[in-house]
């Protein structure tokens, strides 16, 4: 009888340790959710009272302790559009090249390693590089142009990778079918592959917009202005930007305590942009994946 009891005991022990381990893992996972909600909740609760139409439509006043953040919103918008104009076409083309043309070759491997490396380069190094190349060498000065190009380079790896991955997900039979019907490779890509890959590509683009709108370090030395109430009129103007504005008023503004309210408001606007972008990307992803399934 003893061996049976022993087996039962080890069995129970095994089950207990499993239960304990799983509970710990579960708690840790839920605490990650809790962290997110604490951060979001804190900023939403403190910031919501600050948000008003005036806050969104006026320039900062009284040493940035009052007034609104319109110039910063417009500036961030300019940078997002500017960097997208640069990074979207190049990134998508480059993703197509890597997945459709250069598959498996040494060149593709090299480019892939380089793309991975580029995505690991810290944003402040992009800032240094942008300052050296665009601001000083090409003489763009601190301008929307210099900032957009810097941010564009920063988001390039993300765009390339998502494009490549959405192309990879497409079954090869579509390519072969199109080619078998006499279409050229370019026609196949344009008429068959890209329309199918587009939803995922667009999701990636939206996520890169989210990334670009929150970056601070690359724009510190290439475009961002400390305080500039007037709106930009050309691509060679400096602008204010939301993330930089938040940094300035929370650490080195004229009166840090008095501008806390504005800081919470700015943080909330930034978070809402990011939440919105992520939500949009998620909705698009599920919407298109359902559509593809029903087809």
């Amino acid at each position: 009888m003893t061996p049976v009891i022993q087996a039962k005991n080890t069995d129970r022990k095994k089950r207990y340790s499993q239960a304990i381990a799983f509970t710990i893992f579960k708690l840790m996972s839920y605490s990650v959710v809790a962290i997110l909600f604490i951060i979001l909740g804190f900023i939403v609760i403190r910031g919501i009272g600050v948000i008003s139409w005036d806050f969104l439509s006026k320039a900062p006043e009284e040493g940035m302790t009052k007034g609104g953040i319109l110039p910063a919103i417009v500036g961030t918008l300019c940078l997002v559009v500017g960097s997208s104009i640069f990074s979207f076409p190049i990134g998508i083309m480059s993703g197509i090249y890597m997945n459709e043309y250069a598959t498996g070759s040494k060149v593709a491997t090299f480019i892939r390693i380089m793309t991975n490396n580029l995505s690991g380069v810290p944003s402040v190094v992009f800032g240094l590089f942008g300052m050296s190349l665009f601001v000083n060498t090409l003489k763009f000065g601190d301008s929307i142009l210099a900032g957009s190009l810097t941010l564009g380079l920063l988001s390039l790896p993300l765009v390339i990778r998502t494009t490549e991955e959405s192309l990879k997900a497409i079954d090869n039979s579509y390519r072969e079918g199109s080619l078998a019907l006499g279409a050229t490779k370019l026609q196949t890509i344009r008429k068959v592959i890209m329309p199918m890959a587009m939803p995922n590509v667009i999701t990636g683009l939206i996520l890169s917009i989210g990334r670009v709108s929150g970056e601070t370090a690359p724009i510190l030395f290439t475009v961002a202005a400390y305080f500039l109430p007037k709106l930009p009129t050309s691509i060679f103007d400096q602008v204010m930007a939301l993330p930089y504005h938040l940094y300035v008023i929370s650490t080195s503004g004229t009166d840090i305590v008095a501008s806390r309210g504005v800081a919470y408001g700015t943080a909330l606007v930034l978070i809402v942009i990011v939440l919105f972008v992520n939500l949009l990307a998620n909705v698009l992803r599920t919407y298109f994946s359902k559509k593809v399934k029903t087809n």
Partner: protein
Amino acid sequence: MISGSITSITILLIILFLFKEAAGLFNSPVIEDGYELALNNTNPVKHLSSYQIKEIFDGKISNWDEVGGKELPIELVRLSDLTKYYTEAELGANFENIPAKASELTAKHPGIILFLPTSYISKSFNGKLLKHETLRPGDFFGGKEWYPTASPSPQYGLLPLLLGTLWVSLGAILLSLPFGIAVAVYLAEISTMRVRNILKPVIELLAGIPSVVYGFFGLVVIVPFLQKLFQLPVGETALAGSVVLGIMALPTIITVAEDAMRTVPRAMKEASLALGATQWQTIYKVIIPYSKSGITSAAVLGIGRAIGETMAVLMVTGNAAVIPHTLLEPVRTIPATIAAELGEVSAGGGHYQALFMLGVILFIITMIISISIEFIGRKKYSN
């Protein structure tokens, strides 16, 4: 298609421009441009390093025998100190006699070190001018002080910044790695599909929050909390940086580690379960060992993100450029230094070049990290 190689071109351009701007650092003079350091002719000391000059001017070195000279007290004379030795009348109404008097003073005092603008040094100067040396690599890589505005000899010591960066990053990874692996295991092996569908977007959102918002949150919540918890004079410490960076590194670690665990072959898991192992035993005896390389990649990637992170760290670590001894002291990291100081320097100067050199170092560190991840990944496939 040229566009395919744009990332490679960008990397080459980054290397080219960072190095171009940083290259001048070791040609930049040890003492401020337009100034001279003069010694008495009988003084055997031939050269002073940047650090020695700073220590002399701070009064920490007060005898020539500490820098390889004779046993003789150091007598430091700046331009403004000349009035202690001569009356204003003697110096002349328009200070036209300063060159002559400076020469006379240097000749008379054997222990003197005189710091004067070059324009006040006459041709017939009776003393020994220290040669204009350039910053040596040892001063930068081995330097223990970062004090770029020190006069007359700015200190560009890498060590406090490098150590600050490492302390903060290691602290962050120690906090977030156990969490990250636990969540990855939970997502990959334990959770139901429904829970996973909630957790995944949450983790994506955590990755999407801008670093400056993390920094702001750290500044208004974590910093005061740590200050109270440990009864510190200031809450802006390396630990605050580690906590914020730990949260920021979580999504990277979770995603990479989870992907690795999902590649464990089904047959291995089923074999383990069929032999009577519980799910938990399977996880720590089969799944975690099998995905070791993936977990290593996750840790390395997390460290990479932590090392390069700028804004959040800049806002919460207090930015004191001293070599840290505990996690509860203010530190300053390499990226934070670049971000905080580059706006205030003139292009082309020694300080500017030193900041670009920091950029080069940061770039090299992240390159090593990227390449080592590539290597870890490949090793796994070859097994």
